[in-house]
């Protein structure tokens, strides 16, 4: 009973790993949005700017 269950469970885990790895599923880096008319037309500064990031390196 356990062996049958574990065999099925293991195959499921392997299949799941194969799927997410092959498809390259990643946690979202940021929200995907849709910008009407395309981003190229909204540049420069019209879409967004990074000034708020505040990154100035480690020193």
């Amino acid at each position: 009973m356990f062996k049958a269950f574990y065999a099925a469970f293991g195959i499921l885990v392997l299949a799941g790993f194969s799927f997410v790895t092959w498809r390259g599923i990643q946690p979202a880096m940021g929200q995907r949005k849709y910008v009407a008319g395309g981003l190229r037309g909204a540049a420069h500064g019209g879409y967004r700017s990074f000034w708020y990031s505040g990154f100035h390196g480690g020193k």
Partner: protein
Amino acid sequence: MAVANCPSCGGPIEFKIGSSAAVICDHCRTVVARTDRGLEDLGKVAPLVDTGSPLRRDLPGKIRGAGFRLVGRTQMRHPMGGVWDEWYAAFDSGQWGWIAEAQGKYYVTVKEPRTNLPPYDMLQVGGMYDGLTVSEIGTATVIAGEGEIPWRVEPNSTYQYADLSGANNRFATIDYSEQPPLFFDGEETTLEGLGINVDLEQPRVTTVKVAKLACSQCGGPLNLVAPEQSERIVCPNCGALHDIGEGNLRYLETLRNRGPQPLVPLGKEGTIQNEHYIVAGFMQRSVTFDKKYFWTEYLLFQPKKKSFAWLVEDAGHWSFVKGVNAGSVSDPDPRGAAPVIEMSGKKYRVFQDSVATVESVAGEFYWKVSVGETARAVDYIAPPEGISKEFSDTAESHEINYSHARYMMPEEIEAAFGVTGLPRPNTLGTLQPIAPGQKPRGCVGCGMFTAFVVALLALAGVLTATLPKRTILNNHYYLSDMANPQATTTSSESWDQPTTSTEGGEAHVTFFTKPFTVNGGHNLEVNGITYLDNSWLYVGGDLFNEKTGMVEPFELKLEHYEGYEDGERWTEGTQDLSAYFSTLAPGTYSLRMEGAWDATKPGPVFDLKVREGVFSRMDLVYLGIAIVLLTIPPWIATARRGVGPRGFTEADRWRDSMFTPYGKKIEDDDDDSSSSDDD
């Protein structure tokens, strides 16, 4: 034979035995004593309590060839509650024999002349007399009787007694009802030993219908399995504790601590060692060392012999426990904790000396059990067996009881009582044997787990090899040139209308890559590499679909610092970072990049590489998650089944013992003291 009339009711009474001292009238229960002056009315005794005894008056028997007939009995109340029968056997030789019957055990004795009996006040349980161990001292009360009695019975009179036991089932009693006291010597025996075939007797009907009692507090049914023996019962519904002595239900209190539920339900029937048992009572007990340690005990009633046994459960380990004659145990220090005791040629090593406390009770018990009741217990072990010595002390009685335990697996308990799902132990039990060649009971499914992990790693290798890893952009940017459009660009790709600015000491540039084609179905890696000298570069970007307008942002925080401090070189930061995008739809995409760096430093070089279908860091996380998921079923199965003794050592067993020979040698240590001589 002398026939007379009862001085109380006038009914006929008969002295069949010439040496009998009294007869209890069958009509009015008056005790009629035979004196020099005639018959004397000593008062009435109470009606007989149905103790479920298979014996009866006029029953013949034979002990070692000596025939006898049971002619009478008295019933005594024990100071701890409970009633026992004293049967009087008139031997064909004219001698009297006393047959005491309690909890399915029979003790036959005859009076022996002794002149050196110890005074009652000098007695101590565990003490010795004539090679016998004093196992109990107390005060008994005469409550009922019938037939002919060899002594002058006075109703409700009390007398002090001492029970002693010795090797080879020897049993003796010192009776302090007279001065000088009387000595009765004999043995513990069985019905077969008394020459009585109980199967030939008519089944007895319990006259006290206690089995049909209902709880006085909640009205719930109290299903008694040992109505003739039980003294206390706890209602399983509301926890009300009742006294049920002599069939009368008397409410005492409602127990607040209901304790755990029994794993083997009360009333459940089962077979252990070919004997039929019913679970009558259940209690949780504890001992306190650095903290409280709990275990549970199941009182088992054996209907055929009217006797009791115990099942003890401790952290998934079980043991079957039966009382043994104190005299059958060779104990050099009956009142203490001798390093080694012996029984039937087997030596047992002392393991623990502690005070056990009753924490909760449920069901019925043959003594007046109470929560908080304490008893000193000394445990000895010789796995898979053990001996426990318990001291019970009250104002009225002092007892020392030895019991023998044998280890049982949860599977055996399940098979014996038809229950399932008992928890499996994860530790080595105190009595659990560690036998060479024992079937390994390690991790359940670990072979499959290993196979799955190997398959998983192989799969990861195959995926890494077969993923497209298609490079679709590989650009080299001189950000200084981009920030200074007048300068000559050396970029490998011209940029699309870069805009630059300098603000707050930071130089900024924004540009677009040329559109590139993504086949889709895989992830996308945007890798940035720069070459910095104690500086930083921030790259914020957006991947966007030229057609659909889908936008997903990312950022790369690149920095590199280095120097010497306290004579040592140090570096900090990373100049190579990647961002990953989840599965993309096929289409034409571009990157909008924004770079910022310290304006006082030269604009850094920035290498941008875009690849489709790569094995990412996240896939390593998935690999870890998959391995963790694969451990769960074996872990649960192993926990349910138990690890078993494989892998444990004797040192593990003795870790919790106050007498451990590992690290603290006990006195008179004997290397083979816990080994079996008869194994």
